[in-house]
């Protein structure tokens, strides 16, 4: 059973607008979360992280929000650019997991002109 879920397989957004990607998890022991971006024919690349001691982390156009009580995190991309068109994965790990991350199924983002 998947412990990390990205329920939206795809998202289309206009250039310049905000992209909001959602991720839900079921394991309350998860305390560290990553977002990765993947272009076709390339491996995923790290985007941004957040630990459970924070509820927000920002890096340029990318902001991740964590709601521990709801077991929910979201990635905001503002403003969206054509180069942001990619698949985005969220990943989560627990302190006792020996570094194992559980990944969601991914959300395909398409930024349109």
């Amino acid at each position: 059973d998947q412990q990390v879920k990205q329920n939206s397989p795809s998202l289309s957004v206009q250039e310049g607008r905000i992209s909001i990607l959602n991720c839900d998890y079921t394991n309350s022991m998860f305390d560290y979360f990553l977002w990765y971006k993947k272009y076709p024919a390339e491996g995923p690349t790290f985007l941004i992280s957040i630990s459970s001691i924070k509820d927000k982390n920002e890096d340029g156009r990318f902001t991740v929000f964590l709601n521990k009580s709801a077991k929910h995190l979201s990635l905001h991309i503002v403003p969206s650019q054509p180069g942001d068109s990619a698949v985005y994965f969220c990943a989560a790990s627990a302190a006792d997991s020996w570094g194992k991350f559980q990944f969601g199924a991914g959300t395909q983002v398409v930024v349109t002109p």
Partner: protein
Amino acid sequence: DVKVTQSSRYLVKRTGEKVFLECVQDMDHENMFWYRQDPGLGLRLIYFSYDVKMKEKGDIPEGYSVSREKKERFSLILESASTNQTSMYLCASSSRPRYTQYFGPGTRLTVL
């Protein structure tokens, strides 16, 4: 920059063949991982290694084995390939267990 390379981008094998997927990282990372990526399932961990000659099972180790004889190299072995092992295989490395993982470009394996 961390570089993780995988021996092949595309591979076609027949059912029953033994398949070797090689991964090399150049950043002296302790930890290495093998995942497979399938549509609708995301990335699933097959095996990982925290040191030379050490290996740990991930979430889906059945049908796979691994070898780590040198720190920079982590091999995934399909002892007898089956059609349900057709997938994208991704290797990753990290300097410490919960640190960011750096991925290779992936190997698209097709088993006929």
